[in-house]
């Protein structure tokens, strides 16, 4: 009888460990789906943005084609999470450069369509930023549980490996002054 109880307790602990590992793994996947949705939203904005700015921006052809190329890459099926994370960083910085370049074209800055696109992009960027932070927290929880004793043994048996987090740029942490942004646009 005591042996049976001991086996029962051990089995229960193993089940709880297994379930909590699976819950953390699924949480990461669920939140990544949210990140993905926000990233797609941004990809959807790109064609319209490029079409609106390209006739004015004669000196930034390379930057525009780079953004288009990144978008094509980003929409490829079967991209791994790590690839998507790497692409996100490139798209964020390329779009950032594009928005800075817009400042050099007064006609473009005053264009209603561009202003609207800039605001939509700003809104989408803030949704992406929120999704990235949620994902990073889920990954941190997941990485902690797969490295902590005793769940680390079960995690290695389940072939669970560490996941990458998004690098949050320092400027993202800074205050976004919307008023400034509106004045600039």
């Amino acid at each position, binding site marked *: 009888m005591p042996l049976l109880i001991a086996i029962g307790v051990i089995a229960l602990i193993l089940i709880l460990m297994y379930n909590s590992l699976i819950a953390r793994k699924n949480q990461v996947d669920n*939140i990544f789906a*949210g*990140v993905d949705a*926000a990233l797609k939203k941004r990809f959807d904005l790109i064609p319209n943005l490029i079409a609106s700015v390209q006739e004015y921006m004669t000196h930034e052809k390379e930057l525009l084609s780079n953004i288009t190329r990144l978008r094509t890459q980003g929409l490829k099926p079967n991209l791994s999470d790590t690839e998507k994370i790497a692409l996100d960083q490139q798209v964020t910085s390329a779009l950032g450069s594009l928005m800075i370049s817009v400042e050099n074209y007064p006609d473009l800055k005053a264009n209603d369509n561009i202003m*609207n696109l800039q*605001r*939509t992009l*700003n*809104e989408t960027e*803030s*949704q992406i*930023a*929120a*999704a990235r*932070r*949620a994902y*990073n*927290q*889920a990954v941190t929880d997941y990485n902690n549980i797969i490295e902590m004793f005793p769940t680390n043994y079960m995690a290695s048996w389940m072939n669970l490996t560490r996941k990458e987090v998004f690098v*949050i740029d320092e400027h*993202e*942490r*800074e*205050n*976004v002054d*919307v*008023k400034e942004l509106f004045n600039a646009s």
Partner: protein
Amino acid sequence: MKSISDLTDFYYNTLYPTIESLEEQRKALANRAWRMFAAMALLAVAGIFLRWYYFHAFDALSSMFVIAGAIIAAWRYRHMIQDYRLEFKMRVMKPLVEAIDSTLHYMPAASVSQTLFERSGLFQGHIDRFEGNDLIQGSIASVNLQFSDLHVESLTTDAKGNSHRTTIFQGLYIVAEFNKHFKSQTILLPDNAEKIFGSVLGNWLQSKHFGRDPLIILDNTAFEKAFVVYGNDPIESRYILTHTMMERLLNFKQKVAHPVSISFVDANIHIAIAYNKDLFEPTVFQSLLKYDNTMSYIRALSLAVGIVEELKLNERLWSKL
């Protein structure tokens, strides 16, 4: 919006003659109230004495004289100060509110509705009595805002089977339009567990909070120490609580010396500040001219109206333009 010093100037320059005349009224009222209390106390003592003199008893019935005296005195007092209270509110509070912003409406007898209180999801427990007053409603920099004093109680039964009222919330309750669209619910409560037990044990205890949405851990240590956050959409909670917003909320919390609970529900922000007293009431046994009393009205009003500026609720994203 006017600053605290502008409002203090307005109070002393414009409202002072009114307050002086109300002060005379207050003195007379305080005298009458003391006389009434003394008469009630005398009647209770007389009752106890007569009971002892004729029946040689000092029992439950004797204490009933005291209880009855206290109840009648409280009822009489409430009735006595009614006109004075209303006059203070209409002649002092109303102009003060309008001086902050002419679009603000002041309704002394009304309050934020029970529906708006329950919608916030901040407080749990069945509401037995919902009371409030001093509703202020309006639009500051195109942001709709309302706030009032609230006193919300539940009925609880102790181990002996005696039921008594427990306060769920008493203080200032503010509801304002938020500048972002969202569908989820995010609740921020004062973080007591983390303060007492530290972050690891505190977080574990908070994650076991039944009846609440899952715990959300945020990437700002100071904010995490100040608030415990529950939400049903971890991405949307972070969409609302950006790094900038967390800083603003922390600053706001530091300004308020009372527990603050905040919720984001139905595209609105709900803020409950537990002052544990009825604000915006005139004093009866203390001078109306006392500086501290004056400043407490002005500070509470500017704090509530100031949230629009403090949290930059007027900086709308294009989707809410």
